[in-house]
């Protein structure tokens, strides 16, 4: 995988190959497979995302009992036309809840890039396809764009909460989804990378402070925020608004913030929301199970 988004942009400029295709070519070289094999495998990931969304069960509860039915509530509110955000963003919010809630309830999802942030990318991409009717092939291309961004972040910094806090998980997922959205709208490599940079910038410094150490609170709702943040970043980009800090430098900033972050707020379930009065009570209750 690439070490810099600038290298992918350069490849597009010099060789005239689109961002997603550059990422695909790299995947083929790395794993010794053909373009068709690579594409088919990525298509499977997209199908699995769609399946996870379709198989949502609003009647389930997570291990702690804290999570369940949020996606269903959001769906009802959207259908009632009550949302300030409107039906498009409402659907994105609903899908983000549904997939990450399914994860908390031990159902099958696609880690993108992690299980804790699994709702962000499908919320954006599935909604765009349902509302804007892109072909499956276009969706897989968007998934390549998202994966290319995630790959650079993983190579350059980190994508786990334990290593870099929530900015590394939801932040990365949001950057990936933003890039995917711009790919769908016909953006070039520079625009794809810019959307990723804008999304990640907004989430710099975000702590990973899960209550009782579980992928439930606040993870599920942060997926909603990551998905909506991806949409605004894509819109800013397509309106021609650019990050003053280049994308790779934004990723480097995320890394340095993650390194400086206290261990208490890096997936240890000690600090932040986990360390609140209520968070501590929940942990004590879980320990007795």
């Amino acid at each position, binding site marked *: 995988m690439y070490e810099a988004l600038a290298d992918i942009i350069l490849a597009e400029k010099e060789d005239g190959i689109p961002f997603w295709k550059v990422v695909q070519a790299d995947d083929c070289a790395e*794993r010794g497979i053909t373009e068709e094999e690579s594409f088919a495998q990525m298509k499977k990931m997209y199908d699995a995302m769609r399946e996870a969304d379709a198989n949502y069960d609003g009647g389930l509860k997570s*291990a702690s009992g804290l999570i369940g039915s949020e996606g269903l509530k959001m769906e009802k509110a959207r259908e009632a036309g009550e949302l300030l955000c409107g039906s498009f963003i409402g659907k994105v919010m609903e899908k983000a809840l549904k997939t990450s809630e*399914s*994860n908390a309830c031990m159902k099958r999802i*696609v880690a*993108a890039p992690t299980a804790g942030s699994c709702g962000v990318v499908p919320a954006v991409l599935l909604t765009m396809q349902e509302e804007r009717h892109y072909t499956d092939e276009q969706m897989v291309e968007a998934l390549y764009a998202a994966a290319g961004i995630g790959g650079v972040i993983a190579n350059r910094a980190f994508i786990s909460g334990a290593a870099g806090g929530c900015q590394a998980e939801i932040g990365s997922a949001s950057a990936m989804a933003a890039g995917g959205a711009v790919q769908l709208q016909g953006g070039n490599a520079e625009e794809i990378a810019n959307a990723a940079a804008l999304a990640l910038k907004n989430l710099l410094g975000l702590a990973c402070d899960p209550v009782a150490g579980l*992928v439930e609170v606040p993870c599920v709702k942060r997926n909603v925020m990551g998905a909506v943040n991806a949409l605004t970043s894509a819109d800013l980009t397509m309106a021609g608004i650019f990050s003053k800090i280049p994308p790779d430098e934004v990723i480097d900033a995320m890394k340095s913030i993650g390194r400086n972050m206290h261990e208490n707020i890096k997936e240890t379930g000690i600090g932040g929301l986990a360390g609140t009065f209520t968070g501590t009570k929940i942990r004590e209750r*879980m320990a007795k199970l």
Partner: protein
Amino acid sequence: MNLLDIIGPVMVGPSSSHTAGAAKIGRVSRMLLAEKVRKADIFFHGSFLATGKGHGTDRALIAGLLGMRVDDPAIPESFSVARKEGLDFTIAGIDLGDVHPNTVKMYLTGVTGRTLEIVAASVGGGSIQICELDGLAANFSGDYPTLIVRIIDEPGHVAEVTSMLAEKSINIATMQLSRFSRGKNAVMIIECDGEVPEDVLKWLLQGKGILKVTYLSLNYGQAE
């Protein structure tokens, strides 16, 4: 790590390290035992012990020992599957000292009486590391076809194994060597770039000073 680790894996939640990693440890352990597991005594360390219950780490590990993959929807019900399939297990806590926070130690017995003592860690994103096999240090991921070859600790046997692999055009990705004590048994752990055919495994066993060959195939159990 490759592109399908960024978008992927498809897995049963909630945690790639505490759920998918645990299931993979279970499945790789079963492959290393090379038969159905009849009994498993499981000891969770660190974060596995502290937050495992809420992450379904216990159910995922048992699912893996039953041969389930990380995306098997039956993972949450693995305890009842284990009862049906006659897998007895115990689960307890342990302090293994200065090891990865997500570490588990297991004593496994198979249906024909084969045993395996294994220490493994879930190191993030669903990736795992096998740290110890039957008391000997190890370091492999289960992502490559892996040969575990027990040899007599005498000059020449390591070279013999590697030259036999070379003759069959099998490229070695990584290799480790450790031993109990001088002149006794040693273990070679060889991660290969391609699958090692059955006849090569049999042929290896005929080599001088080669005591036992265990093979972790990535194709194992695909027809299950």
